């Protein structure tokens, strides 16, 4: 799996390397209508019960039939592209992010997913939760949850998209309402990172979950470069 990840990263790096010195041209070509007709015709000829989309006018042109209009933007592929950015963030490959973003009921969906990941449900009890937001795009970026374990310890579980940075690392903080006091919990090390809270620590006093980019400069204080944040609801 990590081998695949390496290959993916390598191919992205190569693509970025090839981009250097070329023009960024995101223009796309629209396939002719006959391509859609050929697809519909080929699927129509499939046997069996779940055969085929009925042949309809090429969806890339003309008005969208009413039945298909609701779930998708009425647009040609070219203009639909403009709508993709906000939409695709909601359906990113990260299951939890998608769950948190798609369900406004973050509480139900995300916690359920986390419990599923975390193992047996009986072992933990969610006492606080914060949907996380990417501060730049203002879109959902996973969640942070405080769970108490059977042994009484409290754990902050952070589920958020993660990437290794070359010259910096991601650090997780809990910050008070006045943005005066803060506690560093440590490094974010993956899409799922757990931080055991010290006994007696009152998360209610530090309800802001903050993820910052910290340069490798040995300075233990917050860089001021927050990238993700959420507020715990306890």
């Amino acid at each position, binding site marked *: 799996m990590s081998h695949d990840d390496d290959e993916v990263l390598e191919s992205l790096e190569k693509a970025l390397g090839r981009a250097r010195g070329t023009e960024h041209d995101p223009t796309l070509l629209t396939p*002719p209508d006959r391509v859609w007709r050929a697809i519909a015709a080929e699927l129509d000829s499939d046997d069996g019960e779940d055969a085929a989309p009925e042949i309809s006018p090429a969806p890339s042109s003309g008005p969208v039939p009413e039945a298909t209009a609701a779930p998708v933007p009425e647009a040609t592929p070219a203009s639909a592209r403009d709508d993709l950015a906000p939409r695709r963030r909601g359906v990113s490959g990260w299951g939890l992010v998608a769950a948190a973003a798609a369900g406004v009921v973050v509480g139900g969906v995300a916690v359920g997913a986390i419990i599923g990941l975390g193992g047996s449900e009986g072992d933990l009890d969610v006492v606080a939760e914060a949907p996380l937001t990417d501060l730049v795009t203002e879109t959902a970026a996973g969640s942070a949850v405080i769970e108490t374990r059977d042994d009484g310890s409290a754990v902050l579980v952070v589920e958020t998209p993660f990437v290794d940075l070359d010259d910096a690392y991601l650090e997780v903080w809990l910050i008070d309402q006045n943005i005066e006091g803060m506690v560093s919990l440590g490094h974010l090390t993956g899409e799922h990172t757990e931080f055991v809270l010290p006994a007696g620590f009152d998360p209610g006093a530090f309800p802001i979950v903050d993820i910052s980019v910290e340069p490798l400069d040995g300075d233990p204080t*917050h860089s001021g470069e927050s990238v993700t944040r959420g507020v715990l609801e306890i």
Partner: protein
Amino acid sequence: MSVVSVEEVAAPMAVEAAPAGGTDLARAFVAGEDWALEALYRDVSALVYTMAVRALGSDADAEDVTQQTFVSAWRSRERFNPERGDLRGWVIGIVRRRIADALEARGREQRRLEAVKDAEPTKRSPVDDAESVLLAYEVDALGDPRNVIVALAYYDGATHEQISERLDMPLGTVKSHLRRGLIQLRERWEASHVA
């Protein structure tokens, strides 16, 4: 220590509800609802077709590959897990394989005809050209201003300082956009390359 402005924290941290189209579309697609295939085609066919055109250098071959991609996606839709994957990325994974198949078939044909005996190896591979289309698309999809910042850094080779100056944007903000942009690109790349 003041990390961020009070306004920033006072502002509601509401999670924007993502338009449900994405996951609903994926579920409907797997369930075999016709409109989902149309919607998917409307959404991603231009990207699929453009990748194929650039890689294959032939409109006709690209049309074939586009057709094969959507037919194949529909017929194997039950193998897609809408809870785990990204439908668009999954389709891109299919077109990448179809392009590779087309190039492979073409290579076999050419070897058979010995038509490429003296052909110089091309510097850029056709697959790279398709990847470049995808990258341009994904960078664009980062949205303003991140797409501009990432393009300046990686296409134009501008330094962080140059971007900061050119866009009249604080250096830290530029760096933050670049880091986040790369994170997003990597997520998108994984969605279409780990399949």
